[in-house]
């Protein structure tokens, strides 16, 4: 997994609440048993006037300059709610996004981001709006995210601190393989299983 430490990039505002994973990647766009090539289907129902021909809707933010090159998404409350499909994260990543900033996230989506090197940043709505204001004024000015310091810096140089769990932060910073990390505790897992098998034999089919 690609680590996330610092990142500066164009931020695209899509400040709608409750953007669900069906909107991020419509089920129809998940055509194969694969994590690859999903960027084209990102927000397909909003991005294309005609999904079949891929005729773009020029009004949609990701079809406008400079947001075609955006790497940070600014979104409304409860981004990534709905289906557990990890394809939503794979599609964002394939498009080029490295971070999503929103007041809150769907819980499975949040975990999926962390496991794929995309930083989900929780920022209060006023902070998010302040960043979006600068983006509106100067769309080409970059927004910067510093994960070790846990800050977002907008085009005007204002810093916004954010919280992230220690485990999630470590996974992103080091691009760790979570399975390899857990297997370091394998002796404890196997010991638990032995004790548990005696205590709850009905669990073991």
């Amino acid at each position, binding site marked *: 997994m690609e680590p996330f430490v610092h990142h500066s990039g164009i931020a695209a505002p899509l400040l709608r609440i409750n953007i669900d994973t069906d909107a991020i990647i419509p089920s129809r766009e998940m*055509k*194969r048993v694969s994590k690859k090539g999903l960027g084209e289907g990102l927000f397909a129902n909003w991005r294309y006037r005609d999904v079949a021909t891929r005729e773009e809707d020029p009004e949609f933010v990701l079809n406008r300059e400079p947001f075609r090159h955006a790497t940070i998404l600014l979104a409304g409350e409860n981004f990534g*709610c709905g289906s557990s499909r990890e394809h939503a994260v794979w599609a964002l990543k394939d498009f080029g996004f490295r971070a999503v900033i929103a007041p809150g996230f769907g819980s499975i989506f949040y975990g999926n981001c962390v496991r794929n090197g995309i930083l989900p940043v929780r920022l209060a709505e006023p902070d998010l709006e302040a960043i979006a204001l600068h983006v509106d004024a100067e769309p080409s000015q970059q927004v910067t995210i510093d994960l070790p310091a846990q800050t977002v810096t907008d085009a005007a140089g204002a810093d916004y601190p954010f919280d992230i769990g220690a485990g999630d932060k470590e996974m992103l910073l080091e691009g760790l393989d979570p*399975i390899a990390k*857990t*297997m370091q*505790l394998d002796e*404890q*897992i196997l010991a638990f299983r032995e004790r548990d098998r005696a205590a709850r034999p009905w669990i*073991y089919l």
Partner: protein
Amino acid sequence: MARTLAEKIWSQHAVADPGDGTTLLYIDRIFLHERTGSIALQGLEAAGRSVRDPEQVFCTMDHIVDTFPGRSDITIMPGGTEFITATRAAATDAGIRTFDIGDPSQGIVHVVSPELGIALPGVTLVCPDSHTGTVGGLGALAWGIGSTEAEHALATKTLAVAKPKQMRVTYSGQLPFGVTAKDMILALIGRHTASGGIGYVVEFAGEAVRALDVEARLTLCNMAVEFGAWSGIVAPDEKTFEYVRGRPYAPTGEDWDEALAHWRSLATDEDAAFDREIELDAAAIVPQVTWGTSPQHELPVDGAIPDPAGEADTSRRKAMERALDYMALAPGRALAGTPIDAAFIGSCTNSRLSDLRAAAEVLRGRHVADGIRAICVPGSSRVKAAAEAEGLDRVFTAAGFEWRESGCSMCFFAGGEHFGREERVITSTNRNFENRQGPGTRSHLASPTTVAASAIAGRIADVREFAPEEV
């Protein structure tokens, strides 16, 4: 120290403290389906890892498979065959028991897992599917995960999880006639929004929850995710134990006695503290129908479509305006009476035998209105067989409903079968998102009985006007 039910199950499964704010939790059961399970199994294999304890892992074909009689690996969904065959091959290689097409136990994962006794009170269960919390209705601690996390669970039999906050939602009093678990959860989401539960495991409690049968409790917990919750749970009781007894994978003999003794200890301590408590008066809940494109856009069936102008919060107002536009509805108008094009009964929310029985009671001796396309998709092959054994299929078909093989079907559009553009569908499913049931399709969520009543009326209808009140 006094603890909640969820905290008890949590600590009973705590294997280790990785020292990063998470707990390494032991996972008792893992369920997979062909939509997201295939990629998890492939990822695992590509990394050179194997499934630990495949005896505790199960797989079903539900998301992509067609629901027409005589179905096969060939699907209406373009490319669907690959999902089915890849899942079957990977599950077989890994030694995972699969409820395949044609298996009498095939069905929607969250219908199958309690029905077969795979989900049990007090177990931890995960599945790469957002509605996994459904089996919280049995008193299991179950939650949805992504495919990468599923690989972790399969390889290690554990997941590192940050402990959710604790919320209790208490429904006091008794539900009125015509009001169901679906209406209870929609009312909660309507009042406290689709993000109100973020970060919480929600225990549903109170007189009205205790009065629900087990299948209705599954419905209640099914939509906890639509409230934003990490999961939902109901304390198991004698009804739960009776439900579980004798199911194919449920404990038997001495194991049963031991399990039962353990399950009886699974309740929230009287003085346990919750981070948040919400109370609702069950007696005041009426049948609910959604009007918009988020489950929080719900209304009492006798309500009027809200005016965004009255919403002070800018983002919510904009979402309402967008939803009204998508749904082609005008503020101030009564929701009941809105003409519909189709009616759908199915999904992991509302497709169990009790749901079909209740809908059949409304349909018996009646017929859907002219021009209405009505479809019933039983939640599992066992539900379908049981319904047919008591003649429910004939009630549905006599009323003008299609009667299908089990699966997720048109709960969501994956490129295959779908409802039409601008078609208005009343549906017993869980998501009314834009384009969820078809490109441009307009979905109204409701209980199976409200769907049945509306299908007969040809318009969104109040089910309380459709059946005689029970005495």
